[in-house]
């Protein structure tokens, strides 16, 4: 008897278990089970049928799945984006069926199979505001109602060809995308009624073929996403960056930033959420608060991936220099002094402007990224120092055909440069961020992130660089220059025979005579603007000479030349210098190093 009872109990339990395990895969007991015994907060008061809320066996709407609801007559505000190639239309077919509840306008219990006077009484008349309520504004939701065909995948290289899409994600009768492409209203096994899991963005990358994504930090990082800065309490679906994937930054529905479906209205919030020292390795938030910085918080809604670099408004957003879909970590242990000209992990697959002024989709050299804003565009920064010849277009300043330039875009074979510290030598190529970088940059011995996020030295310099007249020479005063140019060599007058006299004794800064970037070939030649000579007009005045009142430099051969100018009240008229012959520092190393410390 007892054995039988226990057997019976066991069978009942088994049956229950079977029902429970089955429940997830079925509409029964899912959130779409709106019957009186449904599990969700929205359910019927008395009605105990499940299918009836959407389907009816008789006299349904003239739509395929025996539809039991009126279609909404709402005109929806649809998704628009400057970067989409899809022709997005008003939702149709199955999407409209979903929206008959989920736009929050139609009564849930108002079904065709019941008289309108006697609708099904529900706990909520319409879908209450919340995540399930998409409202009539679909511009903040992933687009639906566009044809996903070869034309689209051909136009957008980051969209996979429709043949490659898993059959688990069905398109409409005319290959159009519907709610039901991603969602299966009858199966809530994976949560959110998704057809396939969105863990590690599997759902998204079925269609979106983001270049560089498989190796991107955001796709592979196992860091936990707790302790975010901007939305510390909002729950993310998964625990780690890699698992969350796209939804770290994007919201598929009801996104705060509509066009890019971002979780935050301010673009930089999506980045600073993790990159404020809590989750990502480096604290960028503290960098951009420094005195000189590329501060992304200054502008909101200006950046657009399709922007014309010539006419865009001035701005600096994180995504101007970083492609979050492709950014990868930098290898640790880079050579001191230069990071090399090639593009680094964090800047992979960013658009830019080549040195010849051509737009490139993916930069090859890191300076191309800088030229986006600091070259031909009207948004480029103003001139800081007024010079003999002025140029704000850095692309022109760094042309390799210029009379003199710092070797950013290509090597320069100037034998006059004798002061370079190893491993640099004549013919080396450096990059913008060898000078313009964080003062705490890791590659310069600091503990902070590499890159020109922010620095305490203006204009965003990695080390101190005094440009004021009467600056007392010290290793600190011109630390920027001495990072590559040996101080002993400079002060030992290896190249210019009067360096020590000018810098130490008369206290003129490097910038009084030298332009740090370069002199465009259209504005000077190797005679009057060799050796980066471009006098600072706030320090150097013209001098009367037989050829008239003027400021002039003349290169007369290797390590020799003459100047015509007035500086610190002292007039030079074709005052010559020459340093041809053996290097002095090579002859007197001990004495010079002492002098260097003075």
């Amino acid at each position, binding site marked *: 008897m007892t054995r039988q009872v226990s057997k019976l109990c066991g069978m009942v339990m088994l049956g229950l278990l079977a029902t429970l395990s089955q429940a997830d895969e079925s509409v*029964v007991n899912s959130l779409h089970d709106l019957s009186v*015994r449904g599990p969700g907060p929205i359910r019927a008061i008395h009605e105990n*049928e499940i*299918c009836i809320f959407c389907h009816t066996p*008789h*006299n*349904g709407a003239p739509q395929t799945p*025996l539809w039991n609801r009126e279609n909404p007559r709402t005109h929806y505000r649809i998704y628009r984006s400057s970067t989409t190639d899809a022709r997005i239309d008003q939702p149709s077919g199955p999407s409209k069926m979903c929206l008959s509840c989920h736009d929050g306008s139609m009564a849930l219990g108002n079904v*065709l199979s019941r*008289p309108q006077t006697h609708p099904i009484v529900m706990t909520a008349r319409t879908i209450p505001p919340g995540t399930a309520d998409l409202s009539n504004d679909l511009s903040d939701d992933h687009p639906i109602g566009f044809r996903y065909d070869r034309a689209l995948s051909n136009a957008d290289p980051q969209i996979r060809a429709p043949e490659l899409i898993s059959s688990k994600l069905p398109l409409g009768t005319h290959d159009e995308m519907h709610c039901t492409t991603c969602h299966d209203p009858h199966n809530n096994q994976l949560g959110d009624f998704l057809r396939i899991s969105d863990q590690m963005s599997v759902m998204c990358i079925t269609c979106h073929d983001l270049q560089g994504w498989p190796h991107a930090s955001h796709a592979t990082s196992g860091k936990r996403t707790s302790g975010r800065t901007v939305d510390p309490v909002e729950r993310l679906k998964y625990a780690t960056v890699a698992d969350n994937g796209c939804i770290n930054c994007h919201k598929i529905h009801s996104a705060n930033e509509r066009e890019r479906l971002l979780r935050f209205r301010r673009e930089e919030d999506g980045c600073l959420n993790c990159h404020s020292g809590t989750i990502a390795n480096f604290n960028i938030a503290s960098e951009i608060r420094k005195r000189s910085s590329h501060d992304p918080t200054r502008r909101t809604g200006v950046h657009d991936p399709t922007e014309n670099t010539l006419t865009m408004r001035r701005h600096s957003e994180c995504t101007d220099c970083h492609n979050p879909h492709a950014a990868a970590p930098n290898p640790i242990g880079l050579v001191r002094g230069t990071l090399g000209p090639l593009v680094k992990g964090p800047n992979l697959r960013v658009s830019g402007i080549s040195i010849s002024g051509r737009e490139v989709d993916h930069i090859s050299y890191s300076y191309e990224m800088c030229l986006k804003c600091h070259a031909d565009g009207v948004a480029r920064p103003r001139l800081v120092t007024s010079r003999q010849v002025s140029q704000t277009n850095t692309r022109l300043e760094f042309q390799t055909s210029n009379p003199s330039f710092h070797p950013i875009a290509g090597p320069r074979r100037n034998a006059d440069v004798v002061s370079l510290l190893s491993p640099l030598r004549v013919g080396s190529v450096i990059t913008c961020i060898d000078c313009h970088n964080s003062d705490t940059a890791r590659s310069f011995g600091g503990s902070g992130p590499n890159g020109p996020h922010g620095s305490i030295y203006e204009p965003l310099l990695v080390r101190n660089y005094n440009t004021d007249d009467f600056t007392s020479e010290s290793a600190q005063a011109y630390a920027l220059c001495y990072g590559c140019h040996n101080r002993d060599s400079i002060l030992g007058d290896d190249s210019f025979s009067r360096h020590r006299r000018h810098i130490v004794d008369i206290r003129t800064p490097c910038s009084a005579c030298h332009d740090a970037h370069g002199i465009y070939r259209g504005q000077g030649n190797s005679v009057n603007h060799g050796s980066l000579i471009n006098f600072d007009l706030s320090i150097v005045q013209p001098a009367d000479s037989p050829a008239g009142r003027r400021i002039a430099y003349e290169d007369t051969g290797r390590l020799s030349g003459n100047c015509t100018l007035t500086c610190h009240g002292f007039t030079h008229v074709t005052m010559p210098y020459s340093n041809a012959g053996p290097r002095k520092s090579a002859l007197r190393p001990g004495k010079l190093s002492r002098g260097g410390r003075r």
Partner: protein
Amino acid sequence: MIGAKFLLISVAAVCCAITGLASSGIEGSKHDFSGQTGSDVDKCTACHIPKKDDAPKAAPLWNQRADLKRRFNGQDKRVSRPGDGTRICLQCHDGTIAKPVAGGVKTERFVYTKHPRLFTAGHGRSDHPVGVLYPTFSDDFHPIATVLSKGTVLLPHGRVECTSCHDPHNQTDAPFMLVRSNARSALCLTCHKK
């Protein structure tokens, strides 16, 4: 042991008695036209007209003038000729036919007064497909063997007919003369794997 058996039997007997009392059958149901004014039919002859001369080919022999040109859920590719279990019902229930239901009953359109939208001849409306073969290889449906083994839903010749879901003789007392109660959509989910 014997006590338990006796208990089970007696419980079963009581249950049967209760259901027997509750289930009304054709008598008194909406398909019982015998009491209607002007009608001279009894419970059966409203629908079943036995022809004594020749034996009926199909079990419920019915008037052959049923309008079978109507498309049943035309967008469904699986639609084929409905069987007897559908024809009989549509004799009255397609809403297009205005003809005497049975001798003596007024010639008028069959309308369900409580809910006029029903039986409006399917103009712009859709109904569950009838006369279709039960889909054998589909993830959306339970296997036909599972359905048949439950014994509630009948699939004559492997097809879905009106009588698959409806019992015109109203033996279960379920609303809409269903073959079983549709509480928790149990009837729908007998076939549909949703």
